[in-house]
């Protein structure tokens, strides 16, 4: 039982990496969904299960993204760790029963992330479009993640 509960702690890492690896090949009308798409699981777990989203897993996910895309290693890790660090202070303000409020929080978080990211790698308009797509996809992905969060422990 202890092994299973330890395995559950890997769910955030696995969902982030899965969204990252599958999402980076997806496009809507030629516009990529990444990097904004993998921010959805990152934000969700930082907000709702900070005890599951271990810092090391965020660090590793960032390294994976950078190496896959051919960037200098460390930028995404740094931004994800910064998100986790700031997340603990912002969490009490954002977490409410009203979904639109959480959704809006994601909009602000991902926008901030993409601004810093865009400045670091000379990003372009594609980043803004990817942000808009991720905003639209947030409810679906969050619904899927909430099922993982609530149902899996109950099965265990």
């Amino acid at each position, binding site marked *: 039982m202890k092994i299973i509960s330890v395995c559950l702690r890997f769910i955030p890492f696995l969902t982030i*990496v*899965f969204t990252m*690896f*599958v999402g*980076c*090949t997806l*496009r809507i009308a030629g*516009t*990529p969904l*990444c*990097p904004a798409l993998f921010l959805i699981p990152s934000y969700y777990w930082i907000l709702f299960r900070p005890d599951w989203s271990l*810092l*090391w897993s965020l*660090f590793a996910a960032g*390294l*994976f993204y950078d*190496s*896959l*895309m*051919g960037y*200098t*290693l*460390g930028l995404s*890790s*740094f931004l994800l*760790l910064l998100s*986790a*660090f700031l997340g*603990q202070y912002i969490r009490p303000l954002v977490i409410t029963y009203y979904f639109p409020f959480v959704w809006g929080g994601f909009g602000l978080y991902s926008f901030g992330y993409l601004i810093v990211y865009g400045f670091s*790698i*000379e*990003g*372009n308009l*594609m*980043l803004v*479009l*990817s942000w808009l797509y991720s905003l639209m996809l947030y409810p679906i992905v969050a619904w899927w993640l909430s099922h993982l969060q609530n149902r899996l422990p109950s099965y265990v």
Partner: protein
Amino acid sequence: MAFFSRHQKIGPPKPTANPYPSRFQKWRSSLGITFFSILVMGAALRFYKPFYHGIQQGLFETTATTQGVLNSPFQALHHFFNDIVLSLSLRQDYALLQAENEVLKEQLQVLKPLQHENEVLKKSLKVTAFERHGHLTARVLSNPYDGMHHFFLIAAGKKEGLEKDQAVIVPTGVVGRLETVGTYVARVLLLNDARSRIPVMTENSAQKAILAGDGSHMPTLVYVGDVRKIRRGEKVVTSGLGGIFPAGLSVGVVDDITNGKISVRLYVAFHTLEWVHLLKPYTAEFLEEFTTGLENE
């Protein structure tokens, strides 16, 4: 009844989370300290080059392979639907290909004597015949894209004898070059990526230039010999300089010339590629001979 009930010894209480953690425990669980230590480790990785490159290479291989495996079901599904669409238009394609084949046969009849004449002339002029390029075919694993970099991953690597900077082509034209080579996977930098630079020349006006990718689907020609001589619709081919791409490979056509900026429309539609050819690199002797020839010129 008390005689039958077994005496139960009360054991020690089960351990629970300490409600009053010590200062050390607080420090250990502190998010800020963990954050700082990861940053320090990251900085050490970044600035100690050999260690950094080793990690970078290992991570690339792991992520590229995992990404390829994760994507394979989606890719199979995509191919399945593509096959259905293709089979629906099979009869029409067959008729088109038959007509095209007839035309090509006629052209071949005309070309055969010309080819023979070309060989005889080359012999009489003593033109050096360089070793023809062999090639290797590899499957495209996936094409990750985040709006900045244009590349894709192929299922071949050092195991197949690939090396960095090898030319990647398809029958329609040049695709790009190998940027990173792992043991089983490699990353192909496409021509329209902002980091891509290849030496080219225009076919009719014979102007040498560099084809520079800018992230858009139309790369531009820079360092052009004489911009005024280049015409719209002119074919752009590789010049053979630099020793990566052999001369004469099709790249694209000049699409637009505005204020000295020459845009090239590439022949290859990158998003439709499933297989690519990798040209074997030049031998050291050839490169030496080539460099000497260039220096003399």
